[in-house]
């Protein structure tokens, strides 16, 4: 799919559709233009990897690698120019964040305000494993209330 040019509120409504359509993702995913890629394969590989982690700010939820917006194109050129100048990935990221803010990073940095985001999955899994382990270690004998008998009626509340 491609650039939809919303011309009226009603059009936006038409775009509405679904929550179904789940996957509408973003308009036009068009990667590079001819001639953009660097000749140096190693640098180009780094450029692509970096581009995938940088958000195109004028598109919806697209990386600059996927977007054909002029801003994305400029950023791709910037990334490649700095790579050729010998900058490290971190330096390039820092430069772009300095200009556009953290919002530009699709992979958030690890810091105080993002620690819950990064640590929760791990902690949650450990917690789940601990719960599971506790369940099997403190198991009751295998013949608890016979399944046929209905449970005791709880006290009326």
């Amino acid at each position, binding site marked *: 799919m491609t650039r939809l040019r919303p011309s009226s509120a009603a059009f936006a409504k038409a*775009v509405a559709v679904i929550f179904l359509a789940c996957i509408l993702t973003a308009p036009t995913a068009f990667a590079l233009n001819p001639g953009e890629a660097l000749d140096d394969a190693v640098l180009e590989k780094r450029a692509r990897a970096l581009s995938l982690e940088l958000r195109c700010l004028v598109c919806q939820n697209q990386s600059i690698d996927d977007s054909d917006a002029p801003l994305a194109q400029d950023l791709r050129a910037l990334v490649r120019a700095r790579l050729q100048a010998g900058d490290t990935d971190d330096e390039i990221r820092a430069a772009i964040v300095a200009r556009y803010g953290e919002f530009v990073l699709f992979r958030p940095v690890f810091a105080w305000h993002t620690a819950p985001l990064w640590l929760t999955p791990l902690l949650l899994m450990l917690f789940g494993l601990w719960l599971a382990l506790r369940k*099997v270690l403190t198991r009751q004998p295998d013949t608890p209330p016979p399944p046929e008998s209905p449970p005791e009626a709880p006290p009326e509340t």
Partner: protein
Amino acid sequence: MIVELGHFALLLALCVACVQGASVLLCRGLDEAEMSARRLATRAAHLQMALLLLAFLALAYAFYVSDFSVALVHANSHLAKPTIYKLAGVWGNHEGSMLLWVLMLAAYGAAFARFSHRLPDGFVGRSLMVQGWLGMAFLAFLIFTSNPFLRLDPAPFEGRGLTPILQDPALAAHPPLLYGGYVGFSLCFAFAIAALMQREVGRDWAQWVRPWILLAWISLTLGIALGSFWAYYELGWGGFWFWDPVENASLMPWLSGTALLHSALVMEKRRALVRWTLLLAILTFALSLSGTFLVRSGVLTSVHAFANDPARGVFILAILALFTGGGLALYAHRLPGLAAERGFVPVSREGFLLLNNVFLATATVTVFLGTIYPLVLDALALGKISVGAPYFNAVFAPLTLPFLLLMPLAPLMGWRQAMFMDGLQKLGAAALAALLVTGGFLLLRGDAPILPLLLLAASLWLVFGALTDLGVKLRPWMAGRMGARAWPSAGLFAAPLAHAGLGVMLVGVIAASVWRVEKVVAAAPGTRVDIAGYSLRYDGVRDLEGPNYRAETARLVYLNGSMAGAQLFPERRFYQAERGQTTEAAITKNLAGHLYAVIGEPVDDKRVLRIWYHPLVALIWLGGVLMALGGSFALRARIGKQCGAA
């Protein structure tokens, strides 16, 4: 007139839903109150479904004849549109899709009423009552904030058309399948609430709920797979999953529904994990609802965030808070009164299923967190951040690996108590095969980072492990020891197929992500392009006239190999009525890989050509279909069992 009939039927359906929701109350004090309530609710459920079907057909009729005096038809249809898309337009918009939602809700209610004759009165009556409440809430939402039957006066002569990207067969089928999943989990919710209200989770609760979980799960699996396939061929470069918030909204109920599927199995076979299963039943539906809220309210930064109507968002939030909050409060309140559970030993089928639930719960929370974290941070004024695909990939890859490694073992473990080494020994051949095939990939396709390779090997081990499991299960039949029973039961195929499906899908995901080849050139007619061992000649572009669009079509001809002479016709379409544009990729599909060609803008007298080779990408959706097929076998076995017992 027909539209007014539909409108009237819709209003009447709300009244009937109110009766259904009040059935238990209305019948209180009667002789045989429970049986009366059940009868009342059953009739109401059937009537509600009939009325909503009528309303839906009336709306479909308005779309079919392009009655532009109906505001919704005017906003979403066009005379020049092919009939199939006029009809798909019924649910290709907010109001119509909500009508489909309530229709399916009523259909699930009616189907349950129809197929539950052997279940106890009190339980059926209460479950249908809860369904009635849901019907009331969503019908009120539909009628008061998003009525599809509003008229325009004077009637316009022409409609505004349906967004071009939605004029596609896959997207016509995508919403009904997805809703079939979301809405299907409403029954699990209703069952859990009914059981909690009765203060008793009957022995057979898990047995009653499992067919409905399976049905919803199959539908959701197919819906997500179809949506992913559509994104792949329509969005222009072959991406199949973007971790877009709205995709995540469908993934969360899927993950938690999958957990529910497995925990209900433990509950049925071993009468353990009862409380956890009830909680999952409530949460899975809550996730379906919050998916609706997230998408409908416009709080997400996503192209899907179209329904930026705060009134709707607030209404849905209220529904979500009411049902989730109410359900969880009831759960917390009644929990202490529930019967004691059986414990179990770690190395057993149920022990492995518990691990499955730990993983799926973690995965669900991770997706949830990644989706709402930026919103929360922003709301607390702690900064604006983005959470995108790189985050999810970075977190999911290491999280998934250990569970993938354990997964093939689970079906080989017996219930109650099993020997770990016994299971492992059976899988020796599978492990060897997985390593060999991974090595083969490395030789054929070249080097790759270590984590994807480990995941690839684990996914292959899952596929071969599932085959081993199937072999073990089928051995008695192969050896002819089962005598008269000529055919193994359908249930034997369920887990192996579904598990192999997941493995196959992951192999596709990894191969297509790691070994994708891309070529972007500006080509003049006659230019030759080489990619992934294929040579193609570009023959230029010509104009075409479609039913409701103009197109420019390029021709690419294969020059070598078994494909020599075959042609590809990538298109760009311009829809006049909608003033939109789509890119139609031309794809040569075979199992080994897809060659995917797209044309871009003209550059001087040349044309931008983008060609990709996506190795094994078809396995992604094949895996999805296999999973759904596995679910269908389980459902078949379950229905067969119930008929047999009757």
